[in-house]
């Protein structure tokens, strides 16, 4: 299904608010990266949102920016309003259905990336067998192609979902260039971005996890 008309563009303040909704507590750098905004702009939005009581900054090792209860409620309302205004509920629901078909396979791949079976014992993948790692990455690349096709209509309808394509493609490319953390381990890994997309689809459709 191809939706006629221009893609819906989300405002910067909602982009930042919603990025936090899908990520939990996190750093300015990661919010900016997820929202696709320069850090100063993201920070400026965060400060405005904090003044409005929608986000808060917690100090300490496990601190960072996060939503307040009011922020969570505001995000749910505004994201639902956006969906109605843009008339994209059907396309998001179809994308979510396609996502759920691919999701178990992605989790299989993350499992296979982290674990290997040897002598009947499953152990951590120590990444010394490059042929095995290449097999996993080839299948991940194949899944990524299918994911891109499955989510094409969604990206065409709502600009903010295009960001996932950029981030997923980036994580895959870094993993293939030898940065092994970018499959399932780092906070910018394929799995981490994929999980945020899952959370985003649920939040956008108002489905509780």
């Amino acid at each position, binding site marked *: 299904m191809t939706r006629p008309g221009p893609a819906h563009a989300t405002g910067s303040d909602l982009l930042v608010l919603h990025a936090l909704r899908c990520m939990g507590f996190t750093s300015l750098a990661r919010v900016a990266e997820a929202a696709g905004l320069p850090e100063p702009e993201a920070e400026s939005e965060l400060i405005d949102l904090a003044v409005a009581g929608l986000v808060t900054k917690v100090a300490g090792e*496990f601190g960072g920016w996060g939503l307040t209860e009011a922020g969570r409620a505001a995000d749910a309302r505004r994201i639902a309003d956006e969906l109605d205004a843009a008339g994209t509920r059907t396309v998001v629901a179809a994308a979510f259905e396609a996502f759920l078909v691919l*999701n*178990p*396979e992605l*989790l*299989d*791949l*993350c*499992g*296979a990336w*982290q*674990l290997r*079976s*040897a*002598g*009947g*014992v*499953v*152990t951590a993948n120590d990444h010394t067998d490059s042929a095995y790692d290449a*097999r*996993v990455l*080839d*299948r991940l690349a*194949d*899944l990524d192609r*299918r994911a891109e096709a499955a989510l094409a209509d969604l990206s065409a309808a709502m600009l903010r979902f295009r960001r996932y394509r950029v981030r997923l493609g980036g994580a895959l490319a870094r993993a293939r260039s030898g940065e092994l953390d970018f499959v*399932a*381990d780092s*906070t910018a890994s394929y*799995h981490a971005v994929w*999980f945020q997309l899952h959370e985003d689809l649920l939040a956008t459709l108002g489905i*509780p*996890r």
Partner: protein
Amino acid sequence: MSWIHPLAAEVREPVGVLGGKAHGLVVLRRLGLPVPPGFVIGTGACHAVLRDGRLPHGLDGELAAAVAGLEAATGRRLGGTERPLVVSVRSGGAVSMPGMMTTILNVGITAEAADALAAETGDRRFALDARQRLLSSFAAATAAPVPDDALGQLRLAVGTVLASWGSPRATTYRELHAIPHDLGTAVTVQAMAFGNRDQRSGTGVAFSRNPNTGEPVPFGEVLFGCQGDDVVSGRSRTRPLHDLAGRGPAVWAGLLEALRRVEARYRDACSLEFTFEAGELWLLQVRSGGLAGTAAVRVAADLADEGLIGRHQALLRVAPEQLRQLHILHIAETAEADVLARGLGASPGVASGRLAATADRAARLAADGPVILVRPETSPMDLHGLAAAAGVVTARGGPASHAAVVARAMGKPAVVGVAGLTVDAAGAAIRAGGRTVPEGARITIDGSTGAVVAGSPRLAPAAADPHLGRLLEWADEVSGDTSERSEAERLGAAQAELRRR
């Protein structure tokens, strides 16, 4: 017949044709054990589909003939308006690919057959529930409309199971496990045994020996009044296998006899999936071996002592890698140990870490140190969290639940079936024994005793494992080397010597 083979004692086709599941069922028939009547469509049909893109000529005729044979054997008619024949249609290749392919139960329950089943059992709700399960498993597996003629349903089910061999997820699984793509799956069609028929019915998994410890005592779990995959999913509250001794003595006796026979045949610890309908036992699958850690060591040593295998065979049964994973520490349950809850120990060992109430949270928290994943139950969706966690606790499920199986495979401690435990993922906390424990709090679990303890309790000193000691003595005799080496090296040296001979 060339595509289809009966599930009968005299069938001689190899596992590559019958698939592991049907091959095991034929072995059970040879042992004189109760297997629901049925037939298997060999992997040849799948090869034809892979080659030609459609079902082979002649399969349809053979299918009709096989159904007629099954009708004669059961005294039932597929789609019949009296005593309807209802079948299960299951995948199963030569190499196990758990959870990757489709199974469809209750095939043949058309609207009319549902009426007939209601009349026969005097239980309309049971019949409608069985039909609903059929419709939902078709809906989950295929976009095709479900025909309301029973043979049409069977054809669709067979086609769906065969097609599931080529699903992207199954393809990925084969790539990752180096399983050739051209092996193909067989399709097993059997008369249904209804574990959900009444309270004298049920389903379960029975192990000939305790899969956690290797102790030579039947072990497992049973679910009364339930059908099919409820046990494996860990979704329902199971009872210890031994409950059958009181509630279904004939089923219990039949199971004990079956466990004895399959152990003697496979010369290894075995497990049986079973269903009983109105007090009658049916065996649905047999598996042998597959134990890890302490249990693998003990079973190998015990089987040698019992004369079922030789000592040299026993040495070859245990992978040296498994010795590196042996866990022998326990939580010292002294007065100061703050026990939060108790469940079933499902994978031995002690693990301590920060509590995570979702798999994703576990994956993230694990970057900062060990994590204990606590879930209502787990599914393949939680695999990344299980991989990241040092140990796992589930409120539901038994020793064959997903969490237990995966934890054992990974050599991680697991406690399952913790009564009174609730997981509040949204609130990032768990509740047990009237207390709330937030995510990030340190807890410790003992996968042998089933204890879940707050904080980092004292651990009891490791006791030497007498079974391991015995096995390693035999290993030194074989290698002729008694120098100071690791346990894995001692076993490895013996295996190298045995393989050279």
